């Protein structure tokens, strides 16, 4: 597993060195948190929902993890363009190990980014329901991170360059996020939206995070956990398969 380790380490080194990117990817979730949190807060309270920040914060953390993970996975395209991918592909390391290193690397970075946003939510006034559940919340972040890093790799395997990136962003990642219940409660939605949300794996990740952090759940913790673990595995296997077929 030395190969997986070294690729994991490479991703962390690259992450720590790209401070601007780090700040760039944190800007959006923080903006969402502040603008939506305080913007919709009064209406949410008036409708009897309570403190919107308490509801929204886990969703914003999930968003951070989602974006960080997908982008980490899609960095594979960049590796292909700079030629580094070839270097790893000809090495006597199994494709599975490379995929494992990449996925764990993406998941680790996602957790770190998630933790930073978590700290920001504390500044904004968010208070977790119980601090004891925090490790479980991080487990969820990790699983969501794995799921979507693997997803990003799977996409990257089918792309030659970054040209299709806006399409992926607008037609896959954004819908995943907006239709996940990260920003609004899933209760009492129009039927179509409920159905779509229940097919979105991120919904269960968001719900699990919200359960562990704020103590509110729509699907129930058990189902959240099972779905997130299962889909992570499926995406990991799918990503590994796609990656094993990559030619450069």
């Amino acid at each position: 597993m030395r190969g997986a380790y070294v690729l994991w380490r490479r991703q962390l080194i690259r992450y720590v060195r790209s401070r601007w990117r780090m700040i760039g990817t944190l800007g959006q979730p923080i903006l969402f948190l502040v603008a939506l949190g305080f913007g919709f807060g009064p209406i949410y309270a008036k409708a009897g929902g309570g403190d919107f920040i308490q509801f929204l914060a886990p969703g914003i953390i999930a968003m951070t993890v989602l974006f960080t993970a997908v982008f980490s996975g899609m960095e594979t395209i960049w590796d292909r363009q700079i030629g580094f991918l070839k270097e790893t592909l000809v090495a006597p390391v199994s494709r599975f190990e490379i995929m494992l290193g990449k996925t764990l690397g993406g998941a680790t970075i996602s957790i770190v980014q998630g933790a930073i946003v978590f700290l920001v939510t504390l500044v904004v006034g968010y208070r977790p329901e119980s601090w004891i559940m925090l490790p479980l919340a991080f487990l969820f972040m990790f699983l969501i991170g794995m799921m979507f890093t693997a997803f990003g790799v799977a996409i990257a395997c089918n792309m030659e360059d970054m040209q299709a990136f806006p399409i992926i962003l607008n037609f896959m990642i954004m819908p995943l996020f907006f239709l996940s219940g990260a920003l609004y409660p899933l209760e009492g939605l129009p039927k179509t939206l409920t159905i779509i949300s229940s097919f979105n794996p991120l919904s269960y990740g968001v719900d699990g995070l919200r359960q562990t952090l704020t103590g509110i759940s729509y699907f129930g913790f058990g189902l959240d956990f099972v779905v997130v673990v299962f889909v992570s595995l499926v995406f990991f296997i799918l990503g590994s398969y796609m990656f094993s077929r990559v030619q450069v």
Partner: protein
Amino acid sequence: MEEKAIEVKDLKKYYKSIKAVDGVSFNVEKGDFFAFLGPNGAGKTTTIKMLTTLLNPTDGEARVNGKDVTKDAFGVRKSFGIVFQDQSLDNELTAYENMYFHGVLYRIERKLRKEKIEKMLKFVGLWDRKDSFVKTFSGGMKRRLEIARALIHTPQILFLDEPTLGLDPQTRNHIWNYVKELNKKEGMTVFFTTHAMEEAEKYANKIAIIDYGKIIAFGTVAEIKKKTRTKTIEEAFLKLTGHSIRKEEGSSKDRLRAQAKSWGRM
């Protein structure tokens, strides 16, 4: 019969209508210093990519170190090292880190790894720049680093795809002599491409010339010169492949190849 280092039988790579490699067959014996020559777009790099498991052949068979490139890709990967034609370094890492990652990927034991990295970085004159980011390097320095990296471990077969491109004559000689020495002392098989015919003439013991995806000449340096009745490999090369410039065709081929690849994908 002794096992060959590389065995290629009727190997083909087609992209839609383009026949990048069109049924090549040849053998490379263990310990050979083998030059694989051809004009731009002749199919050299595509062949190397198939031999190094980066591309699946459309048809035909290839064995590297006795292992089939499609059926036992992992076995093949364990037996060779390569310097690619285009860059394959991580610019965001330092020179040392690039070497280190390579060493770990190739399972070189820690102590030996440290020694070898130092030795090779000194060899290519980059030891004092070991902690600089690769993105600050010039083209020649990057090239040297790639060669140093490929030689951290001594593979049974070393592929060099135009390794000396962009290097000054001093560095070129320095590197070729070192590779030649490894070839002699360790019996490492060398498979290289180059456009500098004098390099092939000087170092190779066997030469294959490929054009339009087909092998058009094969033999020792003396045999090829004799067959074409020429005095140098450069003359032989020009006699066999003609004087017209292939650059245009090579690039349009590349474009078509890219197009063929992008169809059916995103």
